[in-house]
């Protein structure tokens, strides 16, 4: 159990654990909107959208990650963030992201609105746009 005013946070991706420790505050974005989680928050289950995941480790230190689509579970003063990717901003490759963005835009224009192929392209575009913005600071 974390110290008072601290929240246990686990950031997990399919390729391994990215962060595990105590933070003062976690902020991210769900489908409903921006969300900030402090210690002893009520239980939450949310679908996350691509954004900057901020972990306020202390007053002076904030860890930032580019976060893709995923899920958030807050229970018993523990926040578990399950995302496909959580990458430090300096590890992003702007060139590759630009390519992914134009590829997603091409697929979006080629597919019929409402099909599964279309919603896939929408999702990819959302991710590439957000990551590119984070990469460019």
């Amino acid at each position, binding site marked *: 159990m974390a110290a008072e005013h601290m929240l246990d946070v686990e950031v*997990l*991706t*399919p*390729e*391994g*654990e990215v962060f595990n420790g105590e933070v003062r505050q976690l902020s991210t974005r*769900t*489908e*409903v909107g921006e*969300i900030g989680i402090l210690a002893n928050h*009520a*239980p*939450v*289950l*949310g*679908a996350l959208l691509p954004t900057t995941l901020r972990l306020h480790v202390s007053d002076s230190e904030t860890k930032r990650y580019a976060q893709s689509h995923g*899920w958030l*579970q807050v*229970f*018993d003063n523990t926040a*578990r963030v*399950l995302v*496909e*990717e959580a990458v430090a901003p300096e590890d992003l490759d702007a060139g590759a992201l630009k390519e992914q963005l134009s590829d997603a835009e091409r697929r979006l224009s080629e597919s019929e609105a409402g*099909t*599964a*192929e279309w919603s*896939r392209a929408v999702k990819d575009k959302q991710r590439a746009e957000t990551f590119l913005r984070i990469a460019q600071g």
Partner: protein
Amino acid sequence: MASQKEVKSRIASIKNINKITRAMEMVAAARLRRSEQRIADLRPYSEGMRKLTRIASAHAGGLPRVPVLAERENVQRVGIVLVTADRGLAGAFNSNIIREGMRSADRVRGEGADPIFSVVGRKGVSAMTFRKQELSGEYVGFTDRPSFADARQIGEELVARYVDEQVDRVELIYNRFVSPLTQHVWRQTLLPLQQAEVVGEGAAAEEESEETQSGDGQSRSEWFFEPEAEELLARLIPEYVTISVYRALLESAASELGARMTAMRNAAENAEKINDKLTLEMNRARQAEITQQILEVVSGAEALS
């Protein structure tokens, strides 16, 4: 009997082969450990997903009717996904998959449906092209180190094809990793998604997480869902397809390395055996030559006396 020189050069080349196969065995063994680690790394994530799903489905009163869970009555086209490797030299690793794929295709035709192949791995692509099979998807270049992004591409393409009714069922055929020495060819129905895949097997339900239990114990209003539980589940469930594909790719990668390790060890042992045989042969040839020379000297001396 071959001359000494011939046997010598054969020994040299066998020794080279022995060195190469030993090196390949060791490389495969080292990468296998990393590969097994990656299977272990996935577990916390997939367990976390299961917990989320259980909580959401407990609040939504069961799993919603989403397209990927819906079984089709009239199956006309069946997608068959074969997971092979980019490289060979791994024993029967690739050919086992191809054989099972062809067998499955026959079974599908027997049901009156058309098989539609997708193939992961260069070896599978070239084997299927050689058999003049049309491929609806080719995924190559990552089989020894698959990333989740690779799995997502495959998983989402399959889901899209299933939801858009281009296929009515999808089967996944891959080498399941049992141990470094053993792999089993495994066939799994990927779509429609099996309920057990989502909520876990019966055994998993018994050790229900404390979160789910106390989640049920607490009044329902205490959980905040963003978005609502039903909608959350509708997004969550298709993710299992990608996770299943990812696990299959990881298991196949570990199996490939295990199979290569075994194949290369056998090859190296075989090279040693041949080396022993050839050394014996060379010694015999040398001895025969010496005997011959002595005989010549002796008979020459006798002729003089």
